[in-house]
């Protein structure tokens, strides 16, 4: 019995190590956001301090208000997510059921657009957006986000649709449904987890974007990650506000992500691996 006991102890220790490595930075960020500035600026860490909300208050203070940034983030990420899920559901269904010899090529093209390096995509999109007047607009950002969210949504939804038993749709057809009706009333509702997972992941990807926003956004469309840049000032880096802002950017996405944990593996591998 001794051997398995020490093995369990080892596993416990390693698990603890994993947790500390993973969570310490996040925890430190959240804790620091409640520290008064002098307690942040110490060479050895301050463990005891009187918590303060001043950094959060400063983030909505005069001349430094992050609320417009948050609104732009919500709009751009939300719109592109809605479009990606809508179009992706239709496209995903089509892809899952389309049997044609060029299917492989089509699938390949879709996935390769998702993998295109952001830096390479920014260049031509900038030229196009400039011609179309989409620079510094929520519409432009929405489209830019769609360029990576849509292929992702098509693939992921097609994986979910592929798992729906064909008998379900056949039964609906026997009952007299048109194909569209069978899709809309029977097949689609069974993929609700897929829709939610796709939506959440698209939201996370676009909410977290920095490269597109920093190239295409202007004074009227800057997103939350852009706000972080303003806090590195000549009066020194304002780590209090930065950690507060980091917390605000990060927490909603962590909760959203954990909410779809059951389908996360499927989602993140675009259906290549099925989770629990």
């Amino acid at each position: 019995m001794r051997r398995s006991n020490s093995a369990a102890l080892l596993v416990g220790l390693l698990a603890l190590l994993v947790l500390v490595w993973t969570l310490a930075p996040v925890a430190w960020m959240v804790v620091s956001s409640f520290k008064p500035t002098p307690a942040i600026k110490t060479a050895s860490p301050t463990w005891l301090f009187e918590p303060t909300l001043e950094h959060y208050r400063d983030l909505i203070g005069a001349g430094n208000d992050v609320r417009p940034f948050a609104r732009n983030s919500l709009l751009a990420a939300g719109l592109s997510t809605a479009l990606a899920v809508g179009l992706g559901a239709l496209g995903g269904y089509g892809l899952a059921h389309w049997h044609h010899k060029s299917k492989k090529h089509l699938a390949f093209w879709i996935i390769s657009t998702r993998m295109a390096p952001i830096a390479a995509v920014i260049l031509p999109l900038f030229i196009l957006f400039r011609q179309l007047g989409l620079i510094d607009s929520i519409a432009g950002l929405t489209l830019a986000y769609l360029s990576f969210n849509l292929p992702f949504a098509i693939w992921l939804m097609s994986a979910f649709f592929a798992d729906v038993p064909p008998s379900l749709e056949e039964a609906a057809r026997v009952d007299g449904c048109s194909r569209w009706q069978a899709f809309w009333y029977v097949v689609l509702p069974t993929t609700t987890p897929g829709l939610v997972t796709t939506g959440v992941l698209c939201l996370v990807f676009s909410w977290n974007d920095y490269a597109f926003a920093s190239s295409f956004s202007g004074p009227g469309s800057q997103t939350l990650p852009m706000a972080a840049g303003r806090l590195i000032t000549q009066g020194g880096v304002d780590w209090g506000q930065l950690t507060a802002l980091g917390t605000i950017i990060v927490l909603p996405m962590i909760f959203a992500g954990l909410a779809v944990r059951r389908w996360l593996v499927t989602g993140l591998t675009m259906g290549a691996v099925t989770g629990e």
Partner: protein
Amino acid sequence: MDGSTPVSRRSLLHGMGALGALAYLPGCKGGSKESVGAATESVGDGWARYKGTTINFISENTPPSAAIAANLKPFEELTGIKVNISQMELTKLVEKVSLDFSSGQAGFHVIYADPYQVLAPFSEGLVDLTKFLDKKDFPALENGLSDFISTQLDAGGRFLDRQKLYALPYDTPTMIWHYRADLFEKHKDKMAHDLGFDPTPSIQLTWEQYYAIARWFDKNAKSEIPYGTGHQAKQHDALMCDFSNVLWAYGGDYFQAGPELGLVGTKKPGKSTLSGNEAIAAAEFYNKLLKLAHPGSRTWDWDGVASAFQAGQLAMCPNWHEFAASNEKALPGKVGYAPLPRGPKRSANIWGGTGVGINANASDKEQAAAWLFINWATSPATQFMTLASEKGGGTPTRRSVYARPDVEAAKKRPSQLPNILAAEAVNEAWKPENIGLRPKVATWNQLDTILFTQVSRMLAGEIKPDEAMRSSAEKFDVVNKV
């Protein structure tokens, strides 16, 4: 030298002379007495014509912009114009401005036009302000253009053509020697004894002596202060600034034409002179100095070095004088200032002033509203307001502000205007023989990047100082096609 931009040595000296003379003309203009609020009311008509217009101002996150952002109300009440201010790190600003000028629209109407990274490469994107200067229906520039320090008007506002003006001088940070006066005071005698010279920072000391002082702190005062010196040596624009001080002190320069390129600039700077012996000697010294500096130096830009200094990590550092205000907050009464040390040639203190200009893509109405804003933002009253602001304090570009009795009085502690504590050192640094002006050329963003990359490689031990200078010069010549 490029013949198309005749900047004679005399006109340069003339401009510089006026600048240097500042220090010796106390109160000659009799600064306006009115308070900030009153100032904006006192100016005449013409302010309210563009009511309801919204303009966007893009600025580096510098103290005057922070102060203005926190105190826009007087302007908005005076004019009915709404101003949004976007502040960001300089590298990001240059990218954003470049993108905005390219977009064909004007996302930003008022541009913080760094003379080297924005004005020189993108001067076509900026409005020639002379078209507003004489217009009767706009409020006049208080005290006229001549109230601006003339060197700064040229260096910060013009490019290639003396008849055109692209920006009004907005701030004027200059690099000087920041040091912990408390520690120097405490150890003065022992240091003088050990080192064999009076260590009190002044323009009389040399960079070698600066090095010796830093090493003395490292050896003898480690428990009080972790490092003798720290530098802004991140692979970033800041590294070019920090290195330039040494480069010029040792008699090196970027181009043959030297400081004359700093005023009106040129499109054809000719061959680079960075491979010269003086430049190599400077690089060798800088390399040696950085081996002694705080190891964080290679990750810091100006903000980083200021944070470290204010956190009590450094006994001294070269940095922009604008940090005086935040230094005073962090270490009240403990910080002293002096012009930077001299090399074999001179003391060189890089000037980092910037003007504000107007995006040429903006509509007529937006341009007019933007003009009202930059008129207001660079007015003596606003400059005094930013100087006195809680948010850190700007640095006036107008003679009349320096001439105010209350500004004069603030040179002594306790000071209501902590940035003025550095004024004596800055005035010395601004003298023509001491100021450091970068070449103003259209390709500067490439040249800047080449230089700070090569110097960064030198600091990392990847190449020798002479290689760093030679390869910089070669790459400069490729970019400038000479």
